[in-house]
Every structure is written in structure tokens, then in C-alpha cells.
């Protein structure tokens, strides 16, 4: 199971048939395991990592440090879940250190994002403060370097 997850994490397009061959497993067995992983939400989604900047698509991303007053019984969860519901929010993580939630937001332009923070995020009950950091450039995401200079430089044929 771990091996199937590793393979899919590195290339989600590989089908059950190829994975079965690579792991010396039965095709149907691999299908069954993948289905189970999907049903149990261990595999949540198959997505594509896109370099939008290169595609000529201007998007603005920001990382917002959010300080939150934890609530009895639920701690940070209730506020975090509320923040999650906004489609502008790409990711929400509880972190240790000077602030509590690291929230990534995507928008068409800076105004849209500052608007969202000022009117939606900062006004949520329990949110004590926010600090917005606009993303200037992405070098690496999910283990992938965006401008990778390490191409295949091997000779085409060697002994």
C-alpha cells in the first residue's frame, strides 16, 4: 500500500496496470487497493502542478499569518474550518511559533486579496490579527523545482 501511494504521489497518471507490473502485483488487487485508499480519503485528489506564471496567467498569491484566540473544547478547529470554506483559500495550516494559522490565498490581483483579508478573514470572530505576505516568486513547490536547471545532460549513447 505504501509503495502504491509513493508511486501515485510521484506520478498520478500511472494506471493500475502499470503500477501492478512495477510492483509485481495483480492488476485487480492494485485497483482494489487504490479504490479503498480513495474511499478512505487517504488519496484525496489527483491534481496537476501548474506553473501559472509561465502560462501567462497573472495570479496573485499571499500567505497570511493569522493569530487566533482558541476556543474551549475545539481549540483552533472551529476558526480554521470557517477559514477553509472560502474558495479563495488554497491551504490552511496550524503552526507553532509567533502566530497560529498559515493561510494561503489566491486572487486575481492585490486589491482582491487585501479586500478579502480586510472584510472576510480579519472580521471572523476569534481572529485576533493578520499579517499579509504577498508571494513574489515560487522556486519550489511540492518537491518540484519550477526553474530546474538539472536537465538530462548525458551523452545519448555510452558503453
Amino acid at each position, binding site marked *: 500500500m505504501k509503495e502504491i501511494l509513493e*508511486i501515485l504521489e510521484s*506520478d*498520478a*497518471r*500511472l*494506471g*493500475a*496496470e*502499470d503500477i501492478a*507490473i*512495477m*510492483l*509485481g502485483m495483480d492488476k485487480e488487487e492494485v485497483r482494489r487497493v487504490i479504490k479503498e485508499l480513495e474511499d478512505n480519503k487517504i488519496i484525496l485528489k489527483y491534481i496537476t502542478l501548474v506553473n501559472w506564471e509561465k502560462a501567462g496567467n497573472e495570479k496573485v498569491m499571499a500567505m497570511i499569518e493569522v493569530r487566533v484566540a482558541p476556543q474551549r473544547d475545539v481549540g483552533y478547529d472551529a476558526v480554521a474550518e470557517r477559514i477553509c470554506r472560502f474558495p479563495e483559500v488554497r491551504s490552511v495550516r496550524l503552526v507553532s511559533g509567533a502566530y497560529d494559522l498559515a493561510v494561503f490565498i489566491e486572487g486575481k490581483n492585490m486589491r482582491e486579496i487585501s479586500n478579502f483579508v480586510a472584510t472576510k478573514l480579519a472580521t471572523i470572530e476569534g481572529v485576533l490579527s493578520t499579517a499579509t505576505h504577498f508571494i513574489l516568486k515560487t522556486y519550489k513547490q511540492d518537491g518540484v523545482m519550477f526553474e530546474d536547471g*538539472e536537465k*538530462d545532460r*548525458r*551523452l*545519448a*549513447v*555510452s*558503453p
Partner: protein
Amino acid sequence: MKNQSSWSSYVNPLVSSMPSSGIRKFFDLVSGTKGVISLGVGEPDFITPWHIREACIYSLEKGYTMYTSNQGLFELRQAIAGDLEAAYGVAYDPGKEILVTVGVSEGLDLAVRALVCPGDEVLIPEPSYVSYAPCVSLAGGKAVTIPTVMEEGFRITAEKIEAAITPRTKILLMCYPNNPTGAVMDRRSLLEIAEVVKAHDLLVISDEIYSRLTYVGEHTCLASLPGLRERTVLLNGFSKAYAMTGWRIGYAAGNPDFIAAMTKIHQYTMLCAPITAQMAALEALKNGRLAMTQMVQQYNRRRLLVIHAFREMGLPCFEPGGAFYAFPEITRTGLSSEEFAEQFLKEEKVAVVPGNAFGPSGEGFVRCSYAASVEDLSEAFRRMASFCRARGVRPKTILGPRSFAGEKKPAAGQATG
């Protein structure tokens, strides 16, 4: 005034009579073609793990730019000794029994030159790596090749060796896991070979550069067999296991007399292996295990894909147990090795190496390296399947150490996920 071509008569006849590598010719052909997927590459598609590169950079920053002792950094030799003992249970004294070389290539040349006298015969199982026979010839020895066949998994047997022995036979040169066939040897066959070696008072040069890339069974180090340690020069290195081909760093291990003799040549010709590569090799041995294991796992997955692909397209192929090569037989296409490689390159833009580049017994085969991405492999084999189909090849069998239960039907279409 002499014209330029006449200078060739000044070249040592030993060198001018030496055929240039069959790979070279094919390389020029491939280089002239654009957009080629190459399965002709004899090196890992991984780049040296970053921690190894970083350690080397740090060593440069700290000013490690000087010669080392002829035998190499003592700390590195210690690490090599530790690694050999842990992996294969064979102990060497880092002080007198290990020599750090500029890749296995140098180690091989040193071993051959230190041991071969003019007229001595060296037994080489074939298909074989391209440099063995030329190295023996340069040392004044005679390379005696012993053909191995697909039906026997390209393994060499004690009987075949015994049959090739003459009063001039001095050395058996082994390379398992094998380039180009991917063959591996099992311990029992090696024990039988060890008996023949001892009975005829032979020496062994064992190139085990692919030892870590063993997928079926466990690698047996020849020097670890009873009575063989003293008779064997063990050659290994970092190129394949740690994806460090361009660093040119390897080592030889053997009895103190052999290593001293090799060191003598090494000190006059090479002085020492580059210190930067030695520093990197040390880091590889100290902290490289995880990255190596991951790379080996990747190779093995691709290996299984490749075996499957050959079975589906109907090219007989022995299941390779090591290295990163498959060596399918292509005679069913009605083509020779070179014709196959050339036409396949022209029509489908995929490069494979003609089997006869590895000796006459490689005729009828091509070498496909699976040190390539899964994506490239899938595409290359899709093209190979259509290339073979157009020449009347129909799915049949694959030979290998494992038996495959039940023939599978040819793939109706490409799997999508």
C-alpha cells in the same frame, strides 16, 4: 613534406590494429538525429544526490584541493573496507589492500597491467563490456572470450571456463551483474567456478560495479568465496550505485602484493584520484544509503515494466536480474543488430545499442538501458512494439529465472489512469 594521413604509420601497431568501439560509430549516428529517446545510455538517469554534491562543494570551500596519498584518502579506504565487510562479508585492510582509482576503468587497466605478462590468456565471458579485451591486448595479453547464451541466462559456467583453459590461461575476468545483458550469477555456480579457478591456479579480476543493482536474489562477491579472496582483484566504485559516473571514482581491493603492484603503476600514471571525487565518495558511503536504496527501487520497478513490455511485443528477452539493461533478441524481426538499431533510430527515433558492440555473441540482440524515466520508457516501448509488429513479430515468450504463470494476451490498448 609528409601528408597528414601518413602519420598513422607512426602509431603503435598495437593501438592502430585495435578496433574502435562499436558504440562510438552508433553514437555519431544518434547525435545527428534530433528528438531521440535514448535507451542507449550506460549510466544512471539520476543526478548525484544533493548531499554528496554539497559535501564536495564544502570540501572545495575548505580548501581540499591537494594531492592525496597514492592509495587515496585513508578515511575513504576505511569507509570502503567497512562497506565491503558489511555488504559482502569480505574484510580488507585499508592500509595495504585497498587502492582508490579513477573509476573501475582505471582499476581494470591497473589490474590487467600488473598481472598480465605478454602471451598470457585472459578469459572473458561474452557479451562483455567494451573495454576488457582492448585492455588485455594493450598489456600484451590475449583475450579469450567465452560466449554465453540467452537460454542459460547469459551466465558463465564452470564447464565453459574449464573448456577454455590452456596452459597460458592466467586470469578469469568476470562482470556480474553484467553489462550489457543484466545477467546475475547465483552463489552455487560461483562456488563451482571458484573450484575450477583454484584447481587451475587462476586469478580473478571481478568487476562488480553493478553489485548494488541486484534485483533477483542477493549479490555474491567473488572475493567472499572460500579461497578466492587472495586470488581476486575486486573492482567496484560509485558510478552506478550512487549515480556518480562523471566523478570517475572507484576502487580496487585485493591481496597486498597485487594492490602494491597496481599502486606502483597508479603512482606513475595517475598519482592519485581527484580529491574532490574522493571527498564526495566518502560522503556517499557515510550518508548515501537511503538515496541509493530509493534509486535501486526505481530501477527495479522500471525493470519489471521493461520485461513486461518485451513479453507483450513478442521479443524473446531473458529477465535481467541486475544492472539496468535488458538484452532482447531481435532476430525475429529478420534484422541484424546493427540494422535493427539503425532502422529503429531512423523510423521511431529511439536509440538502443546493437548487441554486437559487446562482442560477436551479442549479434542478434540489442541493449536497452532502463535508466530512463517511466514516461520515456513507456513511449519507447510503444514505438518498439509497432516497429516489431511491422516486421511480423508476434507475442510469444520471455525467458527468465522466474516462471511466469500463463501467457498474457497482447495489450489491446494503452492503459490510462
